[in-house]
């Protein structure tokens, strides 16, 4: 009798969880269904619920007729650049925040926290002027620089949490062997926080891949559009067939989701090591 009630509970739990997963996955599934539904069937009632297996050519079509390939490459450049620059900038201050007590440490901490409150849309006007002076308008480098300004604070804080967990004795051994302070950071500390480093790399990559406001306002040359800007251009645009738009949306979403699923173990582990402890 007891086992049957337990099984019943387990079944209920599975149903609730499958429902939950259905809700989180459905919009992406719906992009797939819409992109592979023939134009004539898009406005059917009731709607087609399964992807149309004969419609795969839509992906090749949008690739040939739009700039989506170019947009995806630009997004990838911005995302990779943001990741590399963010990590380069964040490691040393994270180490300093973790290992030293120095006058002004509170100011550094506060500066990192306050940036969380600044809306991108607010800074875009003054940044436009600054970018004009630095000749950064209409460059992917400019986007990398400005995205990094928004990822570095979070990443510094998460890395600080991870470095807190590295025993200091290991560093002492290295310094007795004649290793310099910076040498210790790169040779000893970085390998030990590799999972967290991977997690922060993913966070930076997503930020660069997904960012919209700056890519829209600081870059106007069409050949430098990122996928977010290219795709946003279809909102309210009636001349482009809906299934093409959804195909582009899917080509933009899936790399991010796959990449995330590959590395999400590290992201969660890294976040636990860093951010949660505060």
């Amino acid at each position, binding site marked *: 009798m007891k086992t049957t009630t337990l099984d019943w509970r387990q079944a209920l*739990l599975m149903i609730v969880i499958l429902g*939950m*997963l259905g809700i*989180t*996955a459905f*919009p*992406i599934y*719906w*992009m797939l269904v819409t992109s592979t539904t023939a134009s004539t069937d898009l*406005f059917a*009632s009731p709607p087609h619920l399964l992807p149309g297996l004969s419609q795969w050519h839509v992906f090749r079509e949008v690739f040939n007729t739009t700039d989506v390939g170019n947009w995806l490459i630009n997004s990838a450049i911005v995302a990779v650049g943001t990741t590399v620059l963010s990590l380069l*900038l*964040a490691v040393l*201050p994270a180490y*300093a925040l*973790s*290992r*030293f*007590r*120095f006058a*002004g*440490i509170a100011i*550094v901490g506060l*500066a990192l926290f306050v*940036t*969380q*409150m*600044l*809306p991108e*849309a*607010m*800074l875009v*006007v*003054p*940044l436009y*002027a*600054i970018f004009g002076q630095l000749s950064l308008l209409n460059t992917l480098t400019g986007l990398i620089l*400005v995205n*990094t*300004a928004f990822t*570095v*604070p979070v990443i510094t804080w998460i890395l600080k949490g991870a470095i*807190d967990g590295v025993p200091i004795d290991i*560093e002492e051994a290295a*310094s007795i062997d004649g290793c310099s302070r910076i040498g210790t950071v790169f040779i000893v500390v970085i390998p030990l926080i590799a999972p967290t480093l991977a997690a922060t790399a993913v966070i930076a990559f997503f930020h660069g891949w*997904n960012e919209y406001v700056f890519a829209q306002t600081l870059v106007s040359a069409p050949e430098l559009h990122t*996928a*977010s800007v290219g*795709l946003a251009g*279809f*909102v309210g645009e009636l001349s482009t067939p809906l299934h093409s*738009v*959804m195909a582009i*949306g899917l080509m933009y*979403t899936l790399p*991010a*989701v796959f990449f*995330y*699923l590959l590395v999400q173990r590290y992201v969660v582990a890294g976040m*636990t090591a860093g951010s949660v402890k505060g």
Partner: protein
Amino acid sequence: MAADKQTAKAQAAAGGVGWAPYLFCAPVMLYLLVFQAYPLLQELYLSFTQTSLLSPGQHDWVGWRNYTDLFEQEEFSQVLVVTLVYTVACVVFAIGIGLGTALLLNMPFRGRGIARSLITIPWAAPPVAVALVFIWMFNGQYGVLQHLLNFLGLSSGMEGWLDNPSRALTAVLLTTVWQIFPFTSVVILSALQGVSNDLREAAVIDGADRFSVFGAVVWPAIRPTVMLLTLFITIWSLRRFDLIWLMTQGGPIGSTNTLVIELYRRAFTYRELGEAAAVGMVGLSLALVITVVYFRLTVRAERAAGH
């Protein structure tokens, strides 16, 4: 405490602090100065001027007028109300659903690892793509959500969502919560894994039911994490732009017009950079006030708890 001891030991080993921490922090501080602090000061200055997007070099100093104008306009009180509703709803639903999901995913069941990865998919999806597919799903005539409501008998006929002033905010909120609750659930889940099983079992042996175990053992352990998440979701909701802008641009008739959307409209639609900056400063002040109150309350709560 242990971390502090470690730090002291590290400093002693290095023969005092010296210039190292300043050298280590200098690049980031310089970087934030150029890309965050300097533009912020520019924006503060702009908020006291009348400046047009068409001739941004020409600033006419107007003192507090942009601010006093804002609070005299009736539409601006609507902006504040919409911002408040949006932010509070994001926090309540993202934390509530995130907590519920985390508790579910913390139970033992087959395929738990896979479920834990898949639940986080929305978090990885680009907001622009999310906005586009939700616009399509919320389509009043052909959208799949309207079909679902009709099928369930919860609605009859076709009604618009994003073009309907009384439903647009709900639609935008559903989309936002869909995108952010996986993040809260993952963070709460990792906090749950730190809850001692011994304590939990001891409580069960003492005859505690599910709810009292949660109240006595689980909640105190995850409370700091949930409180910190609440602060972050609040701040992030106050500055969220892309989803709302792409789905509604603040409309219809201002029903989804939050502070950040209003700021963007004033800057790029009406080309009034000074007024836009004042709106931005109001939003930033709100975030600062909430943060200060939050830290005051947590410090007081910790003192009350005897720490």
